[in-house]
């Protein structure tokens, strides 16, 4: 901020817009929840929530949809962070959904729980009666997301209908829904991956260690590097090897790829992303590679 000219930097402008969104949701919904993945975007969401509501507590709980296939570093990090914040955490478990017969585990070497978590998420939203759920999605991530509103309306099946989006002029958000419906809210809609990292740097936020370069046993599949882990079977010909890698996104171990990197500090990560010629989802997410409209299709079903 330049106090002489009363001008905001673009990151300050984005921050102010996001805080405004948080407060609108708190004021207009009865039972909001903040969806937390442990990834960088959800860490920024938590800092923005602090800026929106401190010195009071958050007027909503935090919920993690736990696939059971997370990176252990991320779960440790989550628990430490929530304790520091002094806020309430709800864990919705995909394993519980499997045990209850709500979903069926995929089998084979390419099995993933990524798709199953939609059911766990929708069940948890119904169980707790949540009417709004904050998510960390950004419009720069993917083509379908580039079209999504800040307040993304979901019907009572949790579905997104791209043709029935509510117009969203100015910063006037329509929060009216019927019982059983809910709204996904994306305060980071206008942020890019680089903005997120620069904000993390400015704010001095701690992030899970897997975002920084480390040596890990990996194997290559479909041109991506995956961590050797108990939840994924190797296919003939796949040979594990040690590599210096880091993660650009944090998701399920079964579908999140690592990138070769020596970026060990925040400054180096920012430099690497600024120079990168590949999007984060294109480089690291197998779930978007299924079809041309993979994300649009999953969003229609109620995905994050």
């Amino acid at each position, binding site marked *: 901020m330049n106090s002489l000219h*009363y001008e905001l*930097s673009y990151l300050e402008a984005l921050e102010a817009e996001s805080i405004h969104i948080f407060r609108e949701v708190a004021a207009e919904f009865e039972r909001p929840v903040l969806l937390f993945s442990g990834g960088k975007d959800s860490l920024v969401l938590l800092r923005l929530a602090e800026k929106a*509501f401190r010195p009071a507590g958050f007027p909503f709980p935090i919920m993690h949809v736990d696939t059971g296939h997370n990176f252990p570093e991320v779960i440790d990090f989550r628990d430490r962070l929530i304790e520091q914040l002094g806020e309430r955490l709800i864990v919705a478990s995909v394993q519980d959904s499997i045990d209850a017969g709500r979903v069926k585990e995929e089998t084979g070497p390419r099995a993933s729980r990524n798709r199953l978590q939609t059911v766990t998420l929708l069940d948890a939203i119904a169980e707790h009666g949540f009417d709004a759920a904050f998510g960390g999605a950004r*419009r720069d991530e993917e083509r379908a997301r580039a*079209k999504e509103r800040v307040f993304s309306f979901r019907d009572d099946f949790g579905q997104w209908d791209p043709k029935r989006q509510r117009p969203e002029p100015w910063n006037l958000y329509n929060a009216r829904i019927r019982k059983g419906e809910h709204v996904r809210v994306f305060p980071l809609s206008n942020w890019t991956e680089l903005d997120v990292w620069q904000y993390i740097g400015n704010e001095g*936020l701690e992030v899970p260690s897997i975002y920084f370069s480390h040596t890990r046993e990996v194997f290559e599949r479909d041109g991506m590097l995956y961590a050797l882990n108990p939840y994924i079977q190797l296919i003939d010909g796949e040979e594990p090897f040690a590599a210096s890698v880091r993660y650009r996104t944090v998701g399920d171990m079964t579908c999140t790829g690592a990138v070769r990197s020596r970026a060990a500090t*925040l400054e180096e990560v920012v430099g690497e992303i600024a120079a990168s010629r590949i999007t984060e989802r294109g480089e690291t997410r197998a779930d978007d590679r299924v079809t041309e409209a993979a994300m649009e299709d999953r969003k229609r079903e109620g995905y994050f």
Partner: protein
Amino acid sequence: MPGAASNGHAKRSRPSELLRIATAGSVDDGKSTLIGRLLYDSKQIFTDQLEHVVATSERRGDGYLNLALLTDGLRAEREQGITIDVAYRYFQTQRRKFIIADTPGHEQYTRNMVTGASTADLSVVLVDARKGVSEQTRRHAFIASLLRIPHLVVCVNKMDLVDYDEAVFERIVDELTDWAARLDIWDITFIPISALHGDNVVERSTNMDWYGGPPLLYHLEHVVIATDRNLVDVRFPVQWVIRPMDDQHHDYRGYAGQVAAGVLCAGDEVAVLPSGMKTRIAAIDTYGRDIEAAFPTMSVTVRLADELDVSRGDMIVNPDDPPVPAREIEAMVCWMGSEPMSIGRRYLLKHTSRTVRAVINELEYRVDVNTLEHIETPELTLNEIGRIHLRLSAPVMVDRYRRNRTIGSFILIDETSNDTVGAGMVVHASSS
């Protein structure tokens, strides 16, 4: 500072401004090509996105690199080859960060164009040099002026197809300048370009020596937007009251919101509307730290010197120059509902952080967006724009839209369907 640890002394970002751009047009104008060119020449297209465009162009048999595929994100859009909904694109240069709201140009998607244009600082309208000023060009210019986008840039595209002829360019400039004189446009800039070949987009064209102005990107980087903001009227709509329950902050009561206009400082005398009670600003804080001044568009928390009854929907203002606590509003409205707007119907009206009931008393006229004619009509249908009179169940604190886009705008919500059915801009307001 909870949550912070490893890197508390990281450098602040360079103060680089944010410019929000709205573009309107269809594939035919080369709008998507222009956006693709801006992103491509400023090196903001990622290789996996480009590979996708190459592969899809080949599969569809487009016969050229179809950069529209970069922005048309929905299955239906790619199938039909048109832009249906607003897509947002991001790029940055050394000087500025840009958000492009890429909006559909067809008349049947006017409501989506209004959504994308409502927050824009600058509008880019494309004209095909071969075809000259079209109905669509005039409509886009009208919507830009209706929404009071402060800066309009007309790109006369496909100059390569008219031999880079200055006379063609000048003819279009003259014609649109005449049209713009009938509209409310303060700042209009014309740039002759070829999006396909990159003339005057990022680099200055060597094919048009007769053009003395800057290329498009230079203009986007340098157009002055700081003075577009209103720093005089203090307008702070209260969004949320912060009252911590712990002992440490027992007496803390903060009014949280985003500054819509003016500069707020500790010690300033203010009035709280609609009650009209006067007090002083005791302190302004953000995230536990007191700050000296708050200005647009900061999100802050204001504490007042006296204990007043202040809640969401109230507005903190400067007492010398308050907005009108309006019960009757005349407004231009863009209709966004699939059911027509009819006289006598009730809707919810959301204005800043306040929602009241409203009844449509009168529909003065509909604007023919292509000719600017005023047409008498009994109802407004989807995508039509008209002037209406509203009566409200409780006052809302409004300024005219031309004075303040945040304090002068509202949406109408259908209470039965819960849909957002109208976007309104206040022309006149009265308290009776």
